Every structure is written in C-alpha cells, then in structure tokens.
C-alpha cells in the first residue's frame, strides 16, 4: 500500500496538472464526455499521462473526474460508470513506471443534496460507488476526492470509498476568496473542513481549483495553522483569457505559476500539482523549482523544529 507519510516525510510529492484542458488540446470535441476517451482514445489519454511523467510528475491522476453516475448521465453514459473508471485506471497504470503512483480522481456530481437540491444521500452514494469500484479494480494506488464544495458530498464519497476498498483516500475542496476569507460556495470554512478531516482520519487533504498559485498560499497557511496533516495544493493557472487567435489561455504562465511554489511549500503544502490551465510545461517548471529549493525549505523546517 502507498506509504503516504513516508513518501512526503522529507520531500514534496509532485502530482500532475490539468487533464480537461489537455484533453481539449488533444482534440476532445466540446460536449463530448471526457471519460469516454478512456475507451475510445486510450492512446490520447496515455499520451497526456506520459507527458506529465516526463515533465516530472511522481503521481498521475486518472481521467475520471466526472466519472460518477450523475455526471455521466449528462451524456447518457451512467450505466458505463464502472467500465469507464476501470479503463481510466488501466490506462494510467499501463504507463506509470515503478516509483510513481496512480491516483483515482473523483470529482463532484454537480448536483446538490436536499434541501438545497433534490438529491438524497442514497442516490449520491450510488453515483460514486461504481466509480470507486472501477478505479480500485483498475489498480489505482490511492483515491483523490477532489474539487468538492459540499463537505457532506465529500464525506459521502469518502464513506463509499472506504466501504468499497482499502485504498488511502485523500480529500480536496475548492475554496473561493471572499470578502470574509476563504470559503467554498456552500460556505465551508477552512476550520470546518480541517475539523471534519481530522475526525475522519483522512491521511492528507487540501485544496484545488478556483484559486491561482498566489492565492493558494494564503489558504494553505491557514490550513497549516489548523492541522499537522500533510496538505495538498493544486492551483489553477489563473483566469482564462481570450488570445488574439480567438482561443483561450490562462493568465498565469508557467514561469509565474511556478515562482509561487517555494512559498507554497513554506506555507505547508507537501503534495503539489496543477489544476485548470496547467500543462506538462507547468509541471516541468515546478519540478525544476522543487528540486532546486524544496530540500532547503524542508531542511530549514526540520532544523527549526528539531526532529519533525
């Protein structure tokens, strides 16, 4: 089993960057189910994984972000949930070398539990179950319940995952920076998040999406002040902009994005990757910066606190 604590004891674990924006770049037509490519174009998905591994990712995340039944239902593919997730795991596993890891990505359903929406807890649990089963059977090393905004939904995914398999499950919420500080759209505060993660013995948790790498630092500092658990951070490459040729690009380039990584590590992040808009180019820059500065930062921390 993945020894998460050992893995990040004295180093930073570098995850991969965005899958969605890379799939579109590889020709996924708008309106087409991204997870369907795990069986229609596995070589294209594998090429993205390989590009991240070549850039320096030590763990890659499966192309299964929207692989729950409720999200797949938008494409009429809800009954393919197990297969598409199994194939997502197989594709990633097939290209992942010794010493690197495969994480099973589990995103939100996009629906709301009662009373905000009309979803029951049972239906939500059943939306995640075939996804977890498929990812576990396909051979992932850990699961990442990510980009969640409702703590209840994240906890339900966690519960289903623990009922279904014995893989480590990491949890990541997406926070916005409001006038009153960092909150998810459902109003979950960093304090409420950490409390529940500690109660549930989640081995590592953190934040992804919405914030850029600079804004992420402030949030990680707050989370670090509340917990000693390893923290995960996957920021967006800023905001999308319209290019002169009519295409969209993100306003934080690889250089700028990566320049905040040392501060992010100092703030307490140990499992670091990219979210929307990041690419292998970003991961390559991050890998360079981490290998140049992470040792010193982590060593400095050890010196300060004695043996940590």
């Amino acid at each position, binding site marked *: 089993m993945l020894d998460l604590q050992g893995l990040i004891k004295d180093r930073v674990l570098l995850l991969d960057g965005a899958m*969605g*924006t890379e799939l*579109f770049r590889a020709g996924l*037509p*708008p*309106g087409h189910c991204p997870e369907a490519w795990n069986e229609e174009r596995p070589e294209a998905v594998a090429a993205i994984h390989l590009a991240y591994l070549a850039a320096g990712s030590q763990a890659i995340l499966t192309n299964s972000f929207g692989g729950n039944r409720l*999200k797949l239902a*938008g*494409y009429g593919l809800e009954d393919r949930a197990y297969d598409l997730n199994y194939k997502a795991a197989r594709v990633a596993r097939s290209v992942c070398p010794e010493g690197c890891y495969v994480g099973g990505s589990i995103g939100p359903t*996009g629906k*709301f539990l009662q*009373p*905000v929406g009309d979803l029951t807890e049972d239906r939500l649990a059943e939306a995640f179950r075939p996804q977890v089963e498929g990812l576990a059977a396909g051979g992932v090393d850990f699961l990442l319940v990510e980009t969640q*905004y409702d703590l209840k939904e994240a906890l339900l995914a966690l519960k289903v995952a623990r009922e279904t398999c014995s893989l480590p499950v990491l949890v990541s919420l997406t926070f916005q920076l*409001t*006038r*009153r*500080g960092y*909150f*998810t*759209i*459902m*109003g979950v505060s960093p304090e409420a998040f950490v409390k529940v993660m500690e109660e549930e013995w989640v081995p590592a948790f953190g934040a992804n999406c*919405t914030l850029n790498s600079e804004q992420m630092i402030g949030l990680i500092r707050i989370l670090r002040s509340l917990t000693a658990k390893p923290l995960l951070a996957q920021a967006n490459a800023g*905001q*999308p*902009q*319209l290019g002169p040729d*009519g*295409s*969209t690009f*993100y306003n934080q380039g690889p250089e700028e994005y990566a320049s905040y990584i040392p501060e992010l590590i100092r703030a307490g992040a140990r499992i670091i990757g990219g979210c*929307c*808009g990041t690419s292998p180019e970003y991961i390559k820059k991050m890998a360079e910066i981490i290998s140049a500065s992470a040792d010193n930062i982590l060593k400095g921390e050890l010196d300060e606190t004695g043996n940590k």
Partner: protein
Amino acid sequence: MKQETSEQLQLLTQAIIQGRVDESGPLAEKALASGRPPLEIIEKACLPAIEEVGRLWEAGEYFLPELIAGAEAMKAAMAILQAALKATGQTLQSAGRVVIGTVEGDIHDIGKNLVASMLRAASFEVIDLGADVKIDKFVEAAVEEKADLIALSALLTTTMLNQKKVIELLKSSGLRDRFRVMVGGAPVTEKYAREIGADGYGESAVQAVAVARSLVQIRR
C-alpha cells in the same frame, strides 16, 4: 390594525431573508387576508427581502444554501401574491424577458439555475433553455419569446467561445441591436465579456440581476 399588518409584512420579509420556504407562502396569505393590496405586499415586503438576501451574499455572509433558500421562499410568496394580483385584474410589471441557458458543449447548470432563480425572484420573466444549448437555439428562442435579454452561461474554457459565437450569429443575422447579451460562468471575466462584445457580465448571480436590470433599462 395598521400596526398589526405592518408587523405581518415584516414577518414575511424575515421569512424570505431567512429562507423559510414553508412559512413565506402562508405569511403572504395572512398579509393578503389583512386587506393589504398584493402589489403593496410585494413592494414593501418581498422585494426588499430578496434585495437583503443579495446584499448578505455579496457581503460574504450568505452562501449558496442560504441564497437558494431565500430565492425559494421568495418564489413561494410570489406565487400566492401574483395569483391574488391576477384576480384583481392587475399584473405585476415584468422587469424584462430573459432567455437563459448554458452554451453548447457544456452540461454545467448550477450557476445558470442560480441566475435564473435570482432573476425570477427579481420579477424577470425567465425562459430557461437548459444546458448544452445550440447556438442558433438561443437566437431562435429570443426572437420567438420577444426577449429583452439573452443570458449565456459557460463553465469551460472551450465552451466559453460559444458565447462569442452566439453574439456573432446575432450580428450576422442582423439581430444584434434587438437583444442585450449578458455572459457569466466560472472562467468568464469582465475583460473577456468586453472582448467578445457582450453588453454585460455578472460575477455572481446577485450581480447578474443588477446587470440585467441596467441593461433592460438602457434598452427601454
């Protein structure tokens, strides 16, 4: 008597602000039973209430659950008050007609639904086309429904380009001046909205209502 009824209005206002969906309808009925004209109840109790919900959201005090509960409580009260209004032969003046949807290729509908319910709460007539809506469908529906406004949601960097395509289709069909266009969605920014030639952009559902109001006013 007078004081008693103004207290009733306050109770209704509070029920909407606090999102008590089961109570706002009965409280609207009580206010009607006390003899107040429906229009007065709407203007003095309901509209200030939903504005306060919006203010609390903007201030970061309210989040999605509170905003949705407030809009639902408003809807329940308005259903009763509008029926009463109709019975007296009056109708509430519409704030404007909006055709709304998430653009082609995009199945995300949380933000769009939120904007639609906030617009409805603010007395707009909303024609919701759903998610993954074809570019020409927006234009067709706007013409057919005699809309004032077209509201386009996009949550992906690839599909936000379809917001631009709707505006281009309006131009090439010679219909650009007939409708105001507003855009929104997580990746959309004010700068992007300007670049693609939209008339307005709302960062949140609450802002979207204010933008919609000002766009309709300019038009009228």
